[in-house]
């Protein structure tokens, strides 16, 4: 059977020229619509969420399970090897050593947890798991497995490991899109904790390759800001809650205008190994009301 005969059978027979034109118009209309209005409550988000998110959840769960098993296998091998080496040593010393190490590990974990909880304990938080990342290589956005059904809304702040991760920019019933602060189109109003000088923290794909984020417009006329100073979100941001740790200053340069400074910040969050995040259940707008 020749393809010509088959094509006649197809139901719609709009010439592809017109189909292209129609779809182009739809795209442009969508772009204009989403640019000028708030489209996050559109039914499309909901429908797509129910179709795609379960798959993403499943694959992520399977992936995590496999990588955990692989890690366990690796660990088992290591332990066996270690055991053989340690057998040659005095048994008492071995036991003592293992116990000490275990205690230390536990202590560190507990300390971290305590610190994180104390720092932001005034806010209600909910944990969420990252189920998907940006499909392209240009931006750092990711999808988490909680949405409108869990009480989240757009503009809620997301933290992990004691530092700011980003904020929710789009949402469906069972998923939410988080725009990370390292994203190339993200700007956060920051503040040096020690001197209360404000700055604009800007994500950059170029700097992210070196594991840092940039900042600019730091107003530091008294030269008080030093390397290693803590940078937190500032009070004047309209999206981010104040006092959330962003990172530590790792480079300071004088701007050519001799008034402001720019440089780099080492983020407090390890973005490449992020798996679980906490969402703060309050937005800046709610609090200021």
């Amino acid at each position, binding site marked *: *059977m020749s393809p010509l005969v*088959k094509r006649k059978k197809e139901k719609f027979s709009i010439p*592809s020229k017109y*189909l*292209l034109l129609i*779809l*182009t118009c*739809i*795209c*442009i*209309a*969508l*772009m204009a*619509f*989403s*640019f000028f209005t708030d*489209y996050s409550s559109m039914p*499309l*988000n909901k429908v*797509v969420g129910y*179709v*795609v998110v379960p*798959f*993403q959840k499943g*694959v*992520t769960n399977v*992936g995590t399970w496999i*990588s955990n098993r692989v890690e366990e296998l690796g660990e088992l091998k290591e332990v066996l090897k270690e055991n053989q080496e340690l057998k040659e040593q005095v048994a008492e010393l071995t036991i003592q050593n293992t116990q000490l190490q275990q205690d230390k590990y536990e202590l560190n974990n507990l300390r971290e947890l305590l610190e994180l909880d104390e720092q932001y304990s005034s806010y209600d938080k909910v944990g969420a798991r990252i*189920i*998907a*990342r*940006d*499909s*392209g*290589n*240009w*931006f750092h*956005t990711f*999808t988490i497995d909680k949405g409108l059904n869990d009480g989240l809304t757009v503009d809620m702040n997301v933290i992990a490991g004691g530092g700011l991760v980003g904020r929710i*920019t*789009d949402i469906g019933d069972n998923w939410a*899109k988080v725009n990370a602060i390292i994203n*190339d*189109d993200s700007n956060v109003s920051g503040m040096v904790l020690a001197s209360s000088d404000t700055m604009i923290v800007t994500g*950059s*794909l*170029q700097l992210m*390759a070196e594991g840092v984020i940039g900042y600019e417009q730091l107003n530091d006329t008294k030269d008080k800001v030093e390397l290693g100073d803590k940078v937190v979100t500032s009070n004047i941001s309209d999206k981010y809650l104040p006092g959330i740790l962003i990172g530590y200053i790792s480079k300071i340069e004088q701007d050519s205008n001799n008034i402001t400074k720019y440089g780099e910040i080492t983020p407090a969050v390890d973005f*490449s190994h992020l798996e679980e995040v906490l969402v703060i259940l309050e937005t800046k707008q709610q609090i200021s009301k």
Partner: protein
Amino acid sequence: MKKIISMICMILFGFVLQTTLFQKLSFGDISPNLLIIVTASYGFMYGERHGMLVGFLCGLLMDVFNGSVLGFYALLFLYIGACNGLFHRVFYQDDLKLPLALITGSDIVYSLLCYILLFLLRGRFAFGFYVKNVIFPELVYTIFVTIFLYPIILFINNKLNNSEKRGDRKLAKKD
């Protein structure tokens, strides 16, 4: 009908794998562009119309989950699919060179347009950096994945065509 269902499954399959599994398998934060492979393949296998539809749907998925403006990626993928559809006439199944060349070309065009529209217009001029760290690695990885993925798409395509032909024959007998 079967074709449409397989098409939608393919798109979902590509999108889910790209956002989950291949993000874990990424080298230096770069993952392959499966949706380009799917869009381009449907373009040159079935012609412009399918290329357009698949491209539009792929782009729309990306817009909903990743894009800042709805419709941007949809428009980009729509035209990539349509352009690949133009090569339907010179497409032969046994030839692997044309699909590879087309997918390579599509990925380059997609990356360049992304750079120009999303980065250059915001004053990010370090083109060399982006070529070295995003465009080129993505291209190499995408071609690498194509070599394994393309035969699978071709296989599904052939299976569907065969079953359709069988269905046609049955109908013909009844007539």
